[in-house]
């Protein structure tokens, strides 16, 4: 099917590419179907585009690429829900905020999106404790 998007124009979406959020992204309860778009000639490069709402898209990044010490432990309940049996079944992404002041670009390391690429299931989880910031600044050193 074709969807019209705010950022990428009209794009073709095949059913097999659709990612279903078993729990919606917090605050976006009406939207559970997304596709992951890679736009090599753009910054940010990766986006979660809503299939249901053309205006809705979230830029995402691998948290491991912005913080080399990043690690998360998934609870068995999350693994069961997402059908994750081993590390190869899971992809972890965090949402970026790209403000007009580009130096303030930040990502939310506390609430990553865990995604099973084979089963096309995803969920935003909230990590316990305060080890990782909700506002992790990528460019400058105000962390």
């Amino acid at each position, binding site marked *: 099917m074709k969807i019209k998007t705010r950022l990428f124009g009209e794009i073709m979406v095949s059913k097999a590419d659709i990612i279903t959020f078993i729990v919606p992204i917090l605050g976006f309860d009406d939207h559970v179907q997304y596709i992951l778009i890679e736009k090599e000639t*753009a910054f940010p490069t990766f986006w979660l585009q809503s299939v249901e709402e053309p205006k809705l898209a979230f830029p995402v990044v691998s948290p491991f690429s912005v913080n080399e010490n990043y690690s998360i432990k998934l609870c068995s309940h999350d693994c069961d829900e997402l059908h994750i049996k081993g590390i190869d079944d899971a992809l972890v992404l965090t949402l970026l905020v790209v*403000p*007009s002041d580009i130096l303030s670009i930040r990502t939310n390391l506390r609430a990553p999106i865990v995604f099973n690429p084979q089963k096309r299931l995803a969920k*935003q989880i*909230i990590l316990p404790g305060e080890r990782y910031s909700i506002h992790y600044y990528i460019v400058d050193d105000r962390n």
Partner: protein
Amino acid sequence: MLILTRKLGESVIIGDNIKLTVVEINRSHIKFGIDAPKDITIHREEVFEKIMDENEYSSYSNMIDLS
């Protein structure tokens, strides 16, 4: 909203398997102990709100075309 009065050390049971116990009372704050199954997520409300706000800011992001 259901409002119950509890004394220090007393509990309320929510559903079949969640137990909330008052473990400390001070003038301006109360400490709860929460016993719940592992699949029940428990977070401070303000953490939820901050994450919701940050998710919303993320959705306002613009793309910078480098081509």
